[in-house]
């Protein structure tokens, strides 16, 4: 297995939670360190602007 997998299995999870807060709370209840991301969906753009953005970023 890779070094990163070995690290994960040895250390246990040290998490970043993106989405439903309940998962972060469940991790906190198990004393797993977790940073909550206040996720918001990306902005809704018109198709032409979205396509241009994809090309130029």
């Amino acid at each position, binding site marked *: 297995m890779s070094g990163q997998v070995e690290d994960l299995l040895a250390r246990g999870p040290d998490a970043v939670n993106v989405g439903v807060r309940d998962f972060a709370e469940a991790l906190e209840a198990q004393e797993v360190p977790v940073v909550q991301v206040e996720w918001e969906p*990306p902005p809704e753009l018109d198709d032409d*602007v979205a396509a*241009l*953005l994809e090309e*130029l970023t």
Partner: protein
Amino acid sequence: MTTAPAVPSLKERIDSANEEALARLVAADPVLVDVAPASEVVEGLEDRMILHSGPPITWERMCGAQRGSVLGLVLFEGWAGTIEEAERLVASGAVTLEPNHHHHGVGPMAGTTSPSLPVWVVENEAFGNRAYCRPTDAAQQFGDYSDAALQGIREWRDLRAPAVRAALRQLGGLPLKPLLARALAMGDELHNRPNALSALVATALAPALVQAGVETEALVKTLLWLRYDEFLGLALSMAAAKAATEPAEGVEASTLVTTMARNGVEFGIRVSGLPGRWFTAPAPAVDGLYLPGFGPQDAGLDLGDSAITETVGWGGFVLAGAPGILALVGGTPEQATQVSRDMREITLGTSPDYRLPVFAFAGAPVGIDVRKVLKTGIRPTIDTAIAHRDPGHPKIGGGLVRAPLDCFARAFRAFGQEYAESA
């Protein structure tokens, strides 16, 4: 035999154009050089012209506070004797209304500038260009045209501005970069919390006023004004910011934002690679706190050229360093820190000169990239005062507002039409 150099893609052109535009922006070296009647120093200011904040707008569409401010200056200039006369005069089209931004200038809130009104003049010594800003105040700029409100700018014109002019001559100009940097380290964000900057400017001007031989009555009044006006620094940070952005305008293929400005009806931005063009959307409502007796139902929409400070990485972009601002706009220190962190996601870089102790002296985020705003959905955050929706009132509150995404979407579409089709 050598092969021809590869033609850079549009994306590569944008990236290097942005590097150039950002470099120009952060190279700025603002110096306060003069205070003078607008007619003397503002290019293109004609006899019966009043300049205003935000993108171009007609009298018919102008918001209440900006109308009140225009009418106040009509009275101030003596073009009419009563408010009713003033209204008829402007409605007739006899007074030309143009944005400050079209004349190398800015103004806070209604931002109105007229020929006799003395304005602050800042020179960007890195490029030699000059910009102006009209003086801050808590009444006339919010649309209050009462006698008391006009008395304030009359005293500025007749007494305090000439005194400060003399002091500046005495000093040979006042370099602003060191003051701006120190003010940031002292808990200012240089927009709605410019208190330290104001104090530093006052301290610099005071001895010069005396040395310039300003006579006693004017001296005392000017010193007292310097002592008590916590917002005087805002005009200087705005003029410095305007002077910094102008050399960064017109860099081909750059998506750097060079202007953000509002007139209470529309929010407008301008982009370096699309010089002279405004991209507007309806001005947002401000989410904020109100003085007792006022509420959201009384408020006008987002107003002022002061978003020029956020355009160069101050104001809302450095909210984390100014916890004192929270008394105006509400929120917690954690939220303020989050705003500053978010702004870093939409800027091209950080300032080498303006650093935040609260971020272990990391530089303030600077150089808004239209692409990053659209990609992340994070809109520039601006902290701002709130004017009444109707003319005739002073300031009623303060809060936070975010630039409308539509401005950036429109600008980017235009950018595509300009550059992508010919690429």
